[in-house]
């Protein structure tokens, strides 16, 4: 049953990929929403009220009630506004989608974050880990569950595209800022092609910040991390890096 799009508000941060996931989903559903920018180092009283457990963005407020955790929010959006579904209908397809969403947040994103927050041998190991994870995705796209598809969701962007796509831009950003090779087209041709296609979609272009803003942001954080780790105290900056990864 479709709800009228009443009072939807999103608490988010402009450089946070989990916020982008929710923004993109709301856009794809054609939903109007109010947006409140949060400073993730200094959460507002509203954010602390609506996400007391994790105290993080994004938080979706609908009809005065709050939903947090981006993949939970995406499913809530899909089940509340049922036009233009982002989850597949078939139960096995849904399981495959959920599995790779879990993989993205459990394995890929932490490895990417580690590339950003480490250096030397530790960074090299993190880069290798990112490559291992991308290989698994490449294989699924080429020969496995997603073979022959334009997007993970089929002809149109689905939930897994949203989860994986909003965050994959950090690969290009970190490549430039850290001078490492993360996602070269020769090694990951199908994934690379999917990401380019995803980033060309109108709603995605309207959601993801311009790359020069992201580059400037990443360089700033990296500088801070390096200078703080030289004076041996960087947990809040690592938190900043992690929550934006």
């Amino acid at each position, binding site marked *: 049953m479709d709800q009228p799009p009443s009072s939807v508000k999103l608490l988010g941060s402009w450089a946070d990929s989990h916020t982008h996931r929710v923004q993109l989903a709301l856009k794809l559903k054609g939903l109007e929403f109010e947006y409140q920018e949060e400073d993730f180092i200094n959460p507002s009283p509203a954010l602390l009220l609506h996400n007391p457990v994790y105290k993080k963005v994004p938080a979706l407020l609908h009809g005065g*009630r709050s*939903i947090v955790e981006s993949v*939970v929010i995406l499913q809530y959006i899909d089940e*509340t506004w049922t036009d233009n579904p982002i989850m597949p209908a078939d*139960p096995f397809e*849904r399981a495959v989608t*959920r599995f790779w969403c879990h993989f993205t947040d459990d394995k890929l994103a932490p490895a990417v974050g580690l590339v950003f927050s480490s250096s030397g041998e530790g960074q090299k190991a993190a880069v290798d880990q990112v490559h291992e994870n991308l290989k698994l995705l490449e294989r699924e796209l080429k020969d496995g569950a997603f073979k022959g598809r334009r997007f993970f969701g089929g002809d149109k962007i689905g939930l897994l595209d949203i989860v994986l796509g909003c965050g994959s831009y950090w690969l290009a950003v970190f490549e430039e800022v850290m001078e490492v090779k993360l996602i070269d087209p020769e090694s990951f041709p199908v994934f690379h092609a999917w990401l380019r296609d995803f980033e060309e979609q109108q709603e995605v272009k309207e959601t993801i910040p311009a790359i020069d803003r992201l580059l400037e942001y990443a360089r700033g954080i990296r500088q801070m991390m390096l200078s703080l780790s030289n004076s041996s105290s960087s947990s809040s900056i690592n938190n900043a890096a992690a929550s934006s990864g």
Partner: protein
Amino acid sequence: MADQPKEVKLYGHGFSGYCTMVNSALKLKGVAFEYVEEDLQNKSEALLRLNPVYKKVPVLVVDGEPIAESLVILQYIDDVWKNPPLLPEDPYQRAKVRFWADYVYQKLVPPVYRIRTSEGDARKKAEEEFRANLITLEDGVREELWSAGGSFINGEKPGLLDVIMGSCHTGLKYLEDVAGVKLVEKDRTPLLCSCMEAFVELDVVKGP
């Protein structure tokens, strides 16, 4: 649409709480399935082929197609076999159940792992963290999901959170014995204790 009978096989291990979750959910739904006990020190070629990403149990194979990760499997089971439902109908309630289910994996599982693998101060810290997070879970589900009536978070019948927590009961008790520490205190977490105790008493859970 009539449910087509499916060939269902579960690769698991007797001491894994995650496997108990899937095992119990299938039994609660009355699904016929074959069970394969894996030797985790010597994993079968089949398991490694069916779960190449994580190489772990549980793996549910339905008509030859594998699904891994316990929370993914549980939601799949609920999608396919509708009765009795593990998730509520209302999207907001479903979001709350999913949030707290994810919380178990994010905030309870890691300290349990550290309790098992560390010593001294590190272990004490992990124990304190577990207890504190368990209380957060208790308060959260009590406020957001529980409507007094029945032993389970879901009410008279177990839902997804009851399956998850109930399946951890044996492992937690064992850890308390081995570690010599109280992790679950009835007066601090009465609802969680009630659902775990009621869960392990269910015929489908006790049975073969």
